[in-house]
């Protein structure tokens, strides 16, 4: 109250009362400016430059053919069979990886939330895949799927899942499952650790109260655990979806998008277009399309989260 009225002016200070405009429209932004400038420089400027590329022809192999081309890149995108294939693969890759990562991560978190001997050791082990460099785990998994040195094809054959022990990374119908498997192995710790943290924050009396109220273990899970995890689930699923959809490393190392583009997802397609075909304009157009899709997804999920979360 006192600060707002400015009635006291100390001697020697001849400061006029600042205008309303200055105090409410300018001054706050002045204090915010370091953060705003930082965000602008590292996020907004590259984003705008990237989007502007998508309206230009920038191909290093055609250096004399640069300039604004309007929606030409997008028109080409619409007719690009490989784009639609990559989009479809992106869905399969994202949904496959995400759902398996989530379910296994939730299962692990629930197991780790019980009491058993050597719990700390297991917690550390669960976290381990997260710490392995992607490149390394992708290579290791590629080798595991290789029938010459890896055991997986032989095991799959013995289980009757494969007619003969061949490399599934070379089969256009199955190849996507190779990177998905590696990605699940890599991503489970993230869900396990975050969901475990959320589980541990649920007060134990709630379970006791539910037990007294007659709830079975399954009812405790659906009526207490899940509602409590919902906010965490929503936010982690959203983050992971975006990360996985953008996550080309595994695919690039394991299959390079092949065979016959059967494992090409949008982000790996962007990478190949930009750095193999050196067509930055077209790559930017694909990237903007991916950005749009992910934005729509994020908005939907945040909306659902708001509906779900009551705590």
């Amino acid at each position, binding site marked *: 109250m006192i600060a707002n009225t400015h009635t006291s002016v100390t001697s020697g200070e001849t400061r006029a009362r600042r205008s309303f405009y200055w105090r409410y429209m300018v001054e706050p932004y002045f204090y915010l400016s370091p953060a705003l400038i930082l965000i602008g420089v590292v996020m907004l400027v590259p984003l705008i430059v990237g989007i502007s590329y998508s309206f230009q022809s920038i191909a290093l192999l055609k250096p004399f053919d640069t300039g604004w081309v309007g929606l030409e890149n997008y028109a080409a995108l619409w007719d690009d069979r490989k784009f639609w294939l990559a989009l479809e693969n992106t869905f399969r890759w994202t949904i496959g990886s995400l759902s398996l990562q989530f379910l296994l991560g939730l299962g692990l978190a629930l197991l780790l939330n019980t009491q058993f001997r050597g719990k700390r050791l297991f917690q550390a082990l669960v976290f381990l895949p997260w710490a392995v460099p992607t490149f390394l785990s992708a290579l290791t998994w590629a080798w595991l799927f290789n029938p010459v040195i890896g055991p997986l094809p032989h095991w799959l054959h013995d289980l009757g899942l494969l007619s003969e022990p061949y490399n599934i990374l070379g089969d256009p119908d199955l190849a996507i499952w190779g990177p998905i498997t590696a990605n699940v192995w890599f991503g489970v710790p993230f869900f396990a650790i975050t969901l475990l943290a959320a589980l541990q924050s649920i007060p134990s009396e709630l379970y006791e109260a539910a*037990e007294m109220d*007659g709830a079975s273990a399954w009812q405790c899970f659906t*009526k207490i655990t899940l509602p409590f995890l919902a906010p965490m689930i929503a936010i982690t699923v959203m983050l992971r979806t975006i990360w996985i959809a953008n996550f080309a490393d595994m695919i690039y190392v394991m299959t390079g998008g092949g065979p016959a583009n059967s494992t090409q997802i949008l982000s790996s397609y962007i990478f190949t277009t930009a750095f193999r075909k050196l067509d930055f304009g077209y790559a930017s157009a694909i990237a903007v399309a991916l950005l749009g899709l992910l934005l729509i997804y994020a908005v939907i999920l945040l909306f659902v989260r708001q509906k779900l979360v*009551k705590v």
Partner: protein
Amino acid sequence: MARMEIKNLMKRYGQTEVMRDINLDIKDGEFIVLVGPSGCGKSTLLRMIAGLEPISGGEFLIDGLRMNDMRPRDRDIAMVFQSYALYPHMDVERNMGFSMEIRGDDKIKRKQRVLEAAKVLGLENLLSRYPKELSGGQRQRVAMGRAIIRDPRAFLFDEPLSNLDASLRVEMRLEIARLHKRLGATMVYVTHDQVEALTLADRIVVLEGGNIQQVGSPLELYERPANRFVAQFIGSPTMNIIPVSPAKNGVTLANGTKISLSDMLDLNAAAELGIRPEHIDVLPYGTGDFDAESEVVEHLGSDTNLFVRVDGIGPLMVRVHGNVPNQPGDKIGLRFQLHNTHIFSADGQSLGQRITLAA
């Protein structure tokens, strides 16, 4: 309606035995209060009755049926938790009706039953609120409502009032007493507050160090404590304990005063004398059993607490009914009301008491 029998009950955590040989019969419809200092095992005992804590040894029966290995949901007991343990993601109506929801009861029946209980507890306007939007007292009521809805054989309360402020505590205490009268159900109530124990209980169980010290009605515990622990735990302000030595037909205080207790048995083992502050009479200087000097005077309106010092004995507390004009530094005479004097042996057991009840 339930009769509970606890036989030689034991609780072990790993190698440590925290409770041993607990024996207690709870009659149908009785209000039992488990009271004791923190760490005495009262909550553990309650949780064993509830089924939330496994029983390490002995037996627990409800209506003659062995409950040791029954799950909580099969014991048909409701419990009100200290923290209330309301489900924060459900509104009041769903919180209260949760047990019916679990049972898969019909929605209309559920609503009706919740409304009935809500009316009893004055919650009918709050049914669509969430727990975080309620005050402490309202949450407490919802927790009680959740228990009532189930119409269980018995109610358990785990320090239900300890999170409320003083005036609300008195109000809720009355409400619980009313609830007991209305439902007539067996209730087991845990508290560390002796006022709650004295006001609510049909019988009080005083626990200490994992052992039952005494079981009895509030007045029994006040008038005939079995040992020094119960004597000091029950009653406020705390009973004065004064070291004494046995004498012929009585005991001798450290300052040489002789207290005659001729009709008391076995005074040879007497080591301490217990006298409640309200059982010491204040007399003019020089006319009592011995003299004292008051150090601090607390005027409570209805009573006056005098903290006095007696040469050779030390500090004593005296409570006088009404307002007395004493000032700090005043010299006064004191006299013990002999029929309210307790004598304890060196190991704290009561040797009896000169009590003349309506004689």
